[in-house]
């Protein structure tokens, strides 16, 4: 008897839930749907969750100012759960079923590569907000993060400079997938061009979600006995926490062996005691500690939003580079749509080139007219005791992206699309 009752209730609940969806779909006609495709669970959730939230904040902001072409934006949030094939499925769902005008999403390059065929097939529009390895230029994608020449190369140049410690030997440490492998291939070629021998370069990879960095930290220590050493870390996701914990506990100081990270920002350091890590570096196009009115307003907006939406740990929220890139991406898309007067993908793509936006990084940055990348300034920051970064080096202004690295043979002729 009882079991039947439970079953009945369950069925009723499911029905209710199903019908609950219907009205939303029906009233979608006078809104513009945009998709948000970020992992909200799994190993990448540490980095991607805040991108979802900042995208929602930007959408709220645009809606409050009257929306796009008089229509409100309606976000469709899906969770691909750090599962690469699921990214493709969810992207297909967003484009084919929800008919979104644009998708803001992905962090790891492997997830971007996984959704690319879907976006090409259905002629979708993806805004990818994270620094990446380059070697790619797709008509359907706008890259609002850094290409290697806007992050990796300047960072290594800094490590080799006198201010950066004059490193002669390099440990290239990364998570085992396409972004670290390609970046390290470019860096190796770059280091060769600077006269660094193969014997002075050590490449180490770990699986996603790796948590035991004892051997690797001990190896770095031993490698560093051979001369001035720096570590270039392309570790992604929550593995960074055990890595930095081990680094701190093993007493490897930044003054001896500096570690420069390409995927560690303010958000990833929230779960770490940064006092033993003071002096380790990160290279980005934006840090929360940049002082200018646009950035102050951006941080204020984000803090107020986190408090209003009661996000977890709302009192300690931080901003970081991919969040800024997401924010820029959404606003530039809005500008392009308004210029094209339609959300039609091809028209928006044509209107995107040359869009300008006063960004929190302190510059009015521009979408390149041909190569789908932003012109961005480069900053190098040192971790300080409160989980923020002190900026120790920066470029004079935004620099143009080179998605096809000149350090990879065969790229000479490749330029625009």
């Amino acid at each position: 008897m009882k079991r039947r009752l439970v079953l009945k209730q369950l069925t009723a609940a499911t029905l209710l839930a199903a019908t609950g969806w219907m009205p939303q779909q029906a009233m979608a006609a006078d809104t513009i749907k945009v998709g948000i495709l970020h992992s909200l669970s799994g190993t990448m959730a540490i980095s991607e969750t805040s991108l979802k939230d900042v995208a929602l904040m930007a959408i709220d902001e645009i809606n409050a100012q009257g929306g796009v072409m008089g229509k409100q934006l309606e976000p469709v949030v899906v969770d691909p759960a750090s599962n690469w094939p699921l990214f493709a499925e969810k992207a297909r769902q967003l484009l084919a079923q929800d008919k979104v005008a644009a998708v803001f999403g992905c962090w790891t390059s492997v997830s971007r590569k996984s959704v690319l065929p879907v976006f090409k097939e259905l002629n979708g529009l993806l805004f990818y907000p994270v620094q990446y390895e380059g070697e790619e230029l797709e008509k359907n994608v706008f890259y609002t993060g850094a290409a290697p020449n806007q992050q990796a190369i300047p960072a290594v140049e800094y490590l080799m400079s006198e201010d950066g410690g004059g490193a002669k030997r390099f440990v290239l440490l990364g998570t085992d997938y396409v972004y670290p492998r390609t970046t390290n291939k470019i860096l190796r070629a770059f280091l060769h061009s600077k006269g660094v021998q193969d014997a002075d370069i050590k490449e180490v990879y770990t699986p996603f979600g790796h948590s035991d960095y004892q051997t690797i930290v001990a190896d770095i220590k031993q490698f560093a006995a051979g001369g001035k050493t720096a570590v270039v870390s392309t570790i992604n996701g929550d593995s960074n926490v055990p890595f930095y914990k081990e680094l701190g506990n093993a007493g490897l100081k930044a003054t001896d062996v500096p570690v420069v990270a390409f995927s560690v920002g303010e958000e990833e350091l929230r779960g770490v005691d940064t006092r033993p890590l003071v002096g380790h570096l990160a290279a980005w196009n934006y840090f929360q500690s940049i002082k200018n009115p646009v950035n102050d307003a951006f941080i204020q907006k984000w803090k107020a939003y986190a408090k209003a939406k009661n996000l977890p740990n709302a009192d300690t929220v931080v901003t970081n580079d991919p969040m800024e890139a997401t924010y820029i991406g959404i606003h530039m898309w809005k500008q392009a749509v308004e210029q094209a007067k339609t959300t039609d993908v091809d028209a928006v793509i044509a209107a995107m080139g040359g869009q300008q936006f006063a960004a929190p990084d302190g510059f009015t940055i521009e979408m390149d007219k041909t190569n789908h990348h932003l012109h961005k300034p480069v900053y190098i920051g040192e971790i300080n005791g409160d989980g923020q970064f002190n900026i120790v080096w920066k470029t004079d202004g935004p620099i143009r992206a080179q998605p096809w690295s000149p350090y990879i043979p065969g790229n000479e002729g490749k330029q625009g699309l």
Partner: protein
Amino acid sequence: MRNAALVLFLRGLALALLLAAPARASGLDAALLARLAGSDTAARLAAISALGELADPRAAQVLQALGDGKLAAAPGGRMLIDTGNGRAVDAATGEETALPPDADGVIVNNRLRRAISAALAGSRLFSEDPAQRLAAAQRLAQDGDPARLPAIARALAAERSDRVRAALEIAQASLELKSADPAVRRHAVELLGRTDNAAFRPALAAMAAQRPDGSYGEPDPAVRAAAESALRGIDRHLATVEWMGNLFYGLSLGSILLLAALGLAITFGLMGVINMAHGELLMIGAYVAYVVQLLFRRYVPGWMDWYVIAALPAAFVVAAAVGMALERTVIRWLYGRPLETLLATWGISLILMQGVRSLFGAQNVEVANPSWMSGGVTVLGGLVLTYNRLAIIAFALLVVFFVWLLLNHTRLGLFVRAITQNRRMADCVGVPTGRVDMLAFGLGSGIAGLAGVALSQLGNVGPDLGRGYLVDSFMVVVLGGVGQLAGTVVAAMGLGGVNKFLEPYAGAVMAKITILVLIILFVQKRPQGLFAPRGRSAE
């Protein structure tokens, strides 16, 4: 004793005063201090080394504050040392003031930090505290700045402590490698070789190496031979350190595997329940540690360092309660039906994960190491044993001991073993099998909760924490032999050791694959595991 220290101090002070540029006792030069905050790196470096040469103890204080990020520049060029709570000390005069709100922290980078520690080492060579002198001597040994030689020689002449003397001699030797006198060089090489310190390897290797034009880094053959022998000694020592390191890392990984698998050894090993929700019990333990940490932070912040200890019983009780509830409501009805158990517990694991996700969010939560678990101790001159891993090894052994005690020396343990051997016979002679099953499952789950607290000190605490350990736990229990506690211990330590000895050669990814292949081969040869239960109970 006190007199000796005083004499030493006075002597050091006198020497320092003799050396230093005439320092004004009244205060530091404000213009010099202001240069610390400028944007010109070269001027800042010069100011740091100028401060390092001053005998005024306030100069060392300023440098220390600069290195710690405590120095602030107030408008008008006044430099302040932030002493916390909105108070500050004027760096030039030493008078106390309030920290003005518009004072800007002076930012240093690694290059300045290195310069600061070198400058401090120079002045601390004559400090009254032997520990500071020792640290200064060790710091100078890494510097390779020959200009320091006279200072080191003076410090050596004044030094009484044997340890500091030894460190000073090493620092001296490291600088004398470039001496013009082959005899001095040879003596330095031999001394450095005896230290077994890998930091001197590059310098020695450069001496022994042949340049492309045929000449050697070191012209004198006798010195070169000494350098080569010193190199061999250092390499031998490095090999020992590496081996011991692998042993420790293996032990540490093994103890983690052991903790993760021990609960499963009871629920799966002794009771035969294929519990796919085991990983989630680990996760619950870790989240209990997080909650206890939050409670401590809110109500007894002074005791934050001990929240881990309080989290242990709490995690045990919570995980055991969850485990017993599972056993009573789901697993009890499925005894003897392994396939259904597998499916049901898999479903439960998903429910628990999603439950935690809705309760705490999908993001990882921060579980801080208490201060006594941060850092490590250096042994053998290069191997760092981190405190958190040492604590977890000790904890794992303790838990194994208690489980052994419980299973072999209590009535409950006797019942559990009896049921494992022959459930129906135990039932016949009056063992309350239902109750014992519940308690045993609760015990296994509780131990998983304890393990969760330990894991929270090493890695990330998130809803997926258990997933990563589930496969490893089953691997350990199956490899060790179902129904054997000793087997679990040996298998965990063995797997940890093999993994860590493979990793330096094969890399983290290949090491994991190799281990899995080895286990497949092993289980084919010996399906009953390392230690098979003997006698009639074995099916």
